[in-house]
Structure formats: C-alpha cells, structure tokens
C-alpha cells in the first residue's frame, strides 16, 4: 500500500497513457466497421468474404501482431502507433459481425414501410436501420471497449507505455502492489468506458433500454462467434 501512496503520480500518468492508447482504437474500429458491416449485410457475396476475413483477423494473437505491424506499416517497433493499429484491427474484427447482425435484425416490414413512405436508400440507413440497430451496436461496442482496454496492457512487453507497464515493472522489481494497482486501474478504466458507453446509449437511443435488448449480440461477442 505504501508503494501506491508514494507513486500516485506514476499511476495517474500511466492511466492517461492507457486512455490515449485505447480510446482511439475503439472509435476508429467502430467507424471503419460500420460501412464494412453494412456491405456484409447488403451484399450476399460480400458477406462471406468480409465476415470470414474479420473472423481470421480476430484469431490473430495480439502479441505477434504487435511485431508484425511494424514490418507492414514501416513504423518502429517501439512506436505506440503499432498498438493503436493492432487494437483498431481487433475492434473492426469484432464490430463488423455485430454491425452486420444488428442491421440484419431490422424488421423487413419496417424497412419496406420506410421505402413505401418515400425514404431513399441513404436515409433509410441513417434514419431507420442505424437507429434500430443501435442497441446491438452499443452492446458490441461495450465488448470492444472492455477488451481493448484489457488488451492494450500487452503492449507493455514491447515497450509501449500504458497501465501494462505497471505489470512489467512490478514483475521485474518484485513489487506486488504495483501489479495489483495496475490490474485494479485497468478494470476500473474498462468499467468507466463501459459506463460512459451506457450513458451515451441512453442519450442517443432514448426509446430503448439499451442493456436489455442487446443480449444476442452480447452473447455472440462473448462466445467469440465473430469467428464463426
């Protein structure tokens, strides 16, 4: 405990580092996954390819991916950018299926009604499909947020500073309190982002109680059905 009190500054800095590493991938992954998921849902041919590809991407272990990315992108091995790219890839891999499932869950009758009252394809997507798929997307995004925060710690072994640095440092110096503090902070950060998403969901999707409608997508993500 004394270690923690005397190192509050360090803990705070690492928490901030961790936020900087893990928030962009969550947002980027979502933004990229939406059009891909839409394609997968809209075109039968695209569906198999996109979902298989995202399943395979998701199957790639994180640590090796951190090593492979510099060779592809040309970044240096120690660059935090590698981590951001890798985490974004996982975010996309998880979300694409969720987006496709969410869009597919929109009732055909609803879609046809929208066509009947004169919506164009573009506005059906923005004003009908996307909001109705909202709860499913939110559920998927929550899973992505939690797993991204947790995965980001792995980068510490190749030198990307984050809450994970507390693990490597604590391990090398034999300070249990440091590792425990790191675990607690990582979980707390994950819960914080999760809570923020729930609040965001309440604001953006006021017509629904987000937590209840999203079981299917949550479960799918939990079971790793992404790769199914």
């Amino acid at each position: 405990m004394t270690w923690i009190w005397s190192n509050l500054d360090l803990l705070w800095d690492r928490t901030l580092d961790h936020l900087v590493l893990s928030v962009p991938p969550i947002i980027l992954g979502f933004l990229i996954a939406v059009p891909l998921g839409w394609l997968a849902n809209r075109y039968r041919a695209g569906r198999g390819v996109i979902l298989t590809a995202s399943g395979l991407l998701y199957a790639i272990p994180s640590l090796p991916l951190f090593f492979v990315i510099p060779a592809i992108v040309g970044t240096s091995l120690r660059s935090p950018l590698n981590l951001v790219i890798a985490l974004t890839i996982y975010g996309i891999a998880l979300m694409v299926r969720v987006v496709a499932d969410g869009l597919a869950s929109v009732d055909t009758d609803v879609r046809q009604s929208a066509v009947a009252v004169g919506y164009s394809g573009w506005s059906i997507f923005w004003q009908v499909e996307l909001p109705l798929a909202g709860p499913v997307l939110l559920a998927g995004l929550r899973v992505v947020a939690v797993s991204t925060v947790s995965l980001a710690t792995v980068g510490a072994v190749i030198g990307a500073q984050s809450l994970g640095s507390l693990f490597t440092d604590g391990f090398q110096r034999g300070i249990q309190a440091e590792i425990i503090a790191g675990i607690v902070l990582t979980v707390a950060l994950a819960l914080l982002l999760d809570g923020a998403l729930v609040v965001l969901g309440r604001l953006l999707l006021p017509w629904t109680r987000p937590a209840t409608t999203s079981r299917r997508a949550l479960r799918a993500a939990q079971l790793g059905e992404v790769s199914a």
Partner: protein
Amino acid sequence: MNLFGDALNWILDPANYAGPGGIPVRLVEHLVFTVVTVLMASLVAIPVGFLIGHTGRGRSLAVAASGGLRAIPTLGLLTLVALWVGIGLSAPFVALTVLAIPPILAGAYAGFEAIDRSIIDSARSVGMSESQIVRTVEVPLGMPLLIAGIRSATLQVVATATLAAYVADIGLGRFLFAGLKTRDYAEMLGGSLLVILLALVLEGIFALGQRLVIPRGVASGRPPVDRARSARPDPGMEPAITKGTH
C-alpha cells in the same frame, strides 16, 4: 518486404530446428500447454455450465463473473501469479486456466439456453428422466455453442501462451522475447508468424470440427438463436434482436 524475407529465412533455417530451443520443440510445448490448459478449464467449466444451463440457477452470477474476468488484463494476472509462485510453468498454467474458464462456461450454459423450451418439455412429457434429458437432448443440442466456447477459449490460450514466455521458458513466445532482447527482428517476426500460423490452423480445425460434432438436424451449424422465450422469462428481452422469419 525485406523484413518478411528475413523472417522467412529464419523460419526455414535448419539451424533453428535443432536442440531444446528449436522450433519443433517450442511448437510442441506451445501446443501441449494449450491443450492441457483448455482441458483443465473444461473440466471445471463444462459441468458447472451444464448445471447452470439445466437448472437456470446462478446464471446472473456466471454472467457477472465472466464479464469481470474478461476485463482483467492477462498480463497483470500472469505477472502477479508469477510473483506469487515464482518463475516457471505453474504461473502461466494457473493464469491461463482461469482465463479459459469463462468462454467455456458461457458456451456450456448458453448452449442449453438456446434450446427451444418446447423440445425439453416434450422430452419430459415422454417420460425422460432429468439425466436423460441432459444427456440425450440438451448436451447434443447445446453442442454447437459449447464448441464455440471451447474454440474461443483455445484461441485465447494459444495467443496468451505466447505471453507466457514472458514469465516462463515455454512455447513459441520465447522467440519473440529472445529476439526482442537481442534486437533480432528476423527472429521476432519469424516467431510471430509461426504463432499466427498456429492460431489460424487451430481456428481452421475448429471450424471443421464444429461441423462434425453438430448433430444432424441442427444441421445449419448455428443454434436457433434466441428461441421463443420460455421457462425463464426475461421480460422485454427479445424484440429487435430476434431475426424476422420472413
């Protein structure tokens, strides 16, 4: 892509195939470690999951526990256990078994829950005992989701076993950390490619295996997700997700 060329040369270099630190030995270590860990986790998770799935009790506890475990960073658990029990095999073994339990548990009970309630009621009404219902109805029908759970646990363990090399002298991850230490990028990248290949091969095997264990009749390969609600009503849970059957 000179870097990949170097990595490929590293993978193909016969010198890396000899001795206790060679690629074949590391590969076997990695695989055995993964299989043993997943088996141990299954021994704990499957019976408990079946119990939860059959009785419907303790579900929320299981969900909360799996959710909480998902948020726990693997590296943290690994290094913490390593500090407790010392450097060696037991730390990664304990840490990874703990990590492999939630997906298998979730697969086991979700498999049972995904079964249409009327099927189980029919089984009961023709006089099957509870244990018969579990063995001949629920287990086979719940198999696809259970296998999906084991699959995701296996993938997670294969991936994390790489990280285990940080605290123990085991598996393909050694090449990553050894290369990192000596700044030998060919070795790191070669090792990484091997792990990725292994993960993808296992993924492929599971994709095939999943088809084989699914009983005929559940042929589509996917369980009837979110069946018509049943015995344990969750008010207001089904709309928006249930796919329209048009």
